[in-house]
């Protein structure tokens, strides 16, 4: 279509811009929380995450000793750097490295109002210049006494930290972790403490992996039968599978709670594996059958003529050829089981030994620590890191699977 005359020129720039705006709107929310998860707890409440890289000016009052002043050209001159010497030592540690002066002043009452590089005069007749890098030059006609007391707004360099992640995974901040370690606690104890996110992370994996693998095997056999075996009622079964694709899961909750109770499964990992298997099967059978039916008929019929049994044809020919469809269902099912909150709320007990991350975040973190965004942001990214990895690594298969189900 690009080669059609007069098509490209005018619209091109608008298209680029519109797409850019769309992409920015789509990634800004995620980006915001990602940056927040890497910021210091105090910084989060002081400035927006979009200012994370420029740092936030903090007001300080600096007392600069005047002992080093020298007489030059009839003036008493002091040249020093506010980040060095005793002045710098009085500042908090994190403000020292690579900090800069955002503004300074000469009156504590008026605060830091002068831009770095400019010169102002104090009430005592001392002219003061402070550069952004902290270099200070003070000059007075008479020998200065006491200390120069100057209010300054200092900007600490942006600090990104993984502390929030360590805190949410162990439920202890840095100080608490040190204390626990000195009391002889091992990493294992911290990770599996009651309010730590690491346990739910492991539980989520324990739910998602078997719940992805088991339905694939069951569905593959059924899909082969529906695609390549002739028997009465095949069309009806396919229709039933398509119908079951849209059955709301909610319908199954009360009956399955009762049935699992009868069977003695109750609320357990086994229960949720079976539930995810049952709920995932319609899509699995549907996707795999659609794919298998498109495999070349010749291969399968030749194998039959050569005396292969259905079981052999299935395991040796159809299954390997169906890899793209198997992969795309596996991704769907893995994303769905990893991200699920609803099924886990029904089929797993609520204690930390078996709860999954989504539920842990909603019931434990959002409730009791709803305002602590350093915790929530880190928890969110622990939760979505694995699906995002899977997504970017296997996007091709995901797209293929989606298209198999909907575009003719």
């Amino acid at each position, binding site marked *: 279509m690009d080669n059609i005359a007069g098509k490209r020129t005018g619209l091109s720039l608008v298209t680029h811009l519109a*797409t850019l705006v769309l992409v920015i709107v*789509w990634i800004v*929310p995620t980006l915001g929380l990602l940056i927040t998860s890497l910021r210091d707890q105090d910084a989060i409440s002081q400035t927006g995450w979009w200012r994370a890289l420029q740092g936030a000016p903090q007001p300080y009052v600096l007392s600069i000793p005047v002992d080093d002043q020298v007489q030059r050209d009839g003036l008493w001159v002091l040249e020093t750097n506010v980040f060095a010497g005793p002045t710098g030592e009085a500042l908090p540690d994190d403000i020292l490295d690579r900090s800069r002066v955002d503004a300074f002043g000469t009156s504590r009452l008026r605060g830091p109002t002068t831009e770095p590089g400019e010169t102002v005069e104090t009430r005592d007749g001392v002219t003061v210049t402070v550069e952004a890098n902290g270099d200070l030059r003070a000059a007075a006609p008479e020998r200065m006494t006491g200390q120069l007391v100057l209010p300054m707004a200092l900007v600490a360099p942006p600090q990104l930290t993984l502390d929030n992640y360590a805190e949410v995974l162990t439920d202890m901040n840095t100080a608490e972790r040190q204390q626990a370690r000195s009391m002889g606690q091992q990493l294992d104890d911290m990770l599996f403490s009651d309010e730590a996110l690491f346990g739910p992370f492991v539980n989520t994996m324990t739910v998602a992996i078997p719940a992805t693998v088991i339905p694939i095997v069951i569905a593959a*056999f059924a899909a082969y039968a529906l695609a390549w075996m002739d028997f009465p009622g095949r069309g009806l079964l396919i229709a039933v599978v398509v119908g079951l694709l849209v059955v709301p899961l909610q*319908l199954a909750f*009360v009956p399955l709670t009762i049935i699992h109770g009868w069977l003695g499964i109750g609320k357990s990992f086994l229960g949720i594996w079976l539930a995810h298997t049952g709920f995932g099967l319609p899509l699995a059978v549907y996707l795999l059958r659609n794919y298998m039916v498109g495999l070349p008929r010749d291969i399968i019929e030749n194998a039959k003529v050569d005396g292969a049994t259905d079981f052999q044809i299935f395991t040796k020919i159809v299954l390997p050829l169906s890899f793209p469809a198997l992969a795309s269902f596996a991704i769907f099912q893995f994303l769905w089981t990893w991200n699920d909150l609803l099924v886990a709320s029904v089929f797993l007990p609520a204690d930390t030994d078996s709860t999954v991350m989504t539920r842990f975040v909603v019931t434990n973190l959002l409730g009791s620590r709803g305002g602590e965004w350093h915790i929530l942001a880190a928890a969110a990214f622990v939760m979505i890191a694995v699906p995002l990895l899977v997504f970017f690594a296997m996007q091709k298969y995901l797209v293929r699977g989606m298209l198999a189900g909907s575009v003719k």
Partner: protein
Amino acid sequence: MLDSVIVSGIVTIIIGVGGMFAYFWASNWVLDHVFLPAKGEHAGRNINRANQIRPWLFLFPAMFALGLYLVVPVFYSGWLSVTSGVAAGGWYRNYSEIFANDTFRIALLNNMLWVLVVPAASTFFGLIAAQLTDRLSWGNIAKSLIFMPMAISFVGASLIWSFVYHPDIEIGVVNAIRGLFGAESGVTLIDGDIVDSFLLMVVLIWIQTGFAMVILSAALRGVPEETIEAAIIDGANSFDVFFKIKVPQIMGTIVVVWTTITILVLKVYDIVAAMGNQYRNLEILPTQMMRYFDSGNYGFATAISVVIMILVLPVMVWNIRQARSETR
């Protein structure tokens, strides 16, 4: 502790997968060698019979699981909704009670709004995104980024957007943008107003637009070039080409996308549970259903799930008819 959890997971996978393969292999072997051996005087007849039985061996585990986990529950839920806790007041008591409940009516109304707004908006944005990215050199990167929220859980997305909606003008992006236009301080965006549902819908639209985009973009590529060229020669501008030539030709796919998202919207629970759990005005049917389920009121819970099923029914019938017309 960590070891035991991982070991039990691995053992389950081995038992599950190995067990399934063992079942299929063993049942086929028994069929071919014990019950209906392909030798002796009835060899031919046995082979035919074995081939009639074999499909059912392949289908049995799937049919059993589907039956137990989906088919039986549909009828069982229906049965419970007219028998559980209806001692006084007739079989329809659960239904008459929930329909008399204000919160249920709010939930039903909200659900309708979700079903109207989210599929329409997602499909619309998806279509726009598909058309925009189609011709760009960096289109695939753009697509990937718009598609990415698809991998994020509803709970994760709710956290992401709660942060965007944060009431502090120095924390929440929405309030910060209000600040650019002169607002002095932030406002609480989600405070239980009935219109706050739209803010929650944004989260789902954000997730589903990528899905719509991917499918519609494939469909747009399938539009024959002759039709576009003919339109341009006849003097159509880009908007005409898009809305009058391309869109009508991919209408079938648009409907599929629309209905798929509609089904998803009817099942959505996590977003409201994570973002608006304390507000009655934001309730939808699934959150209400879970409230009754958690409190052990199975009669009301199943009645609501049946209502959700009835809302899904038209799409289900349409899907089945589509599938049947294709297989024929």
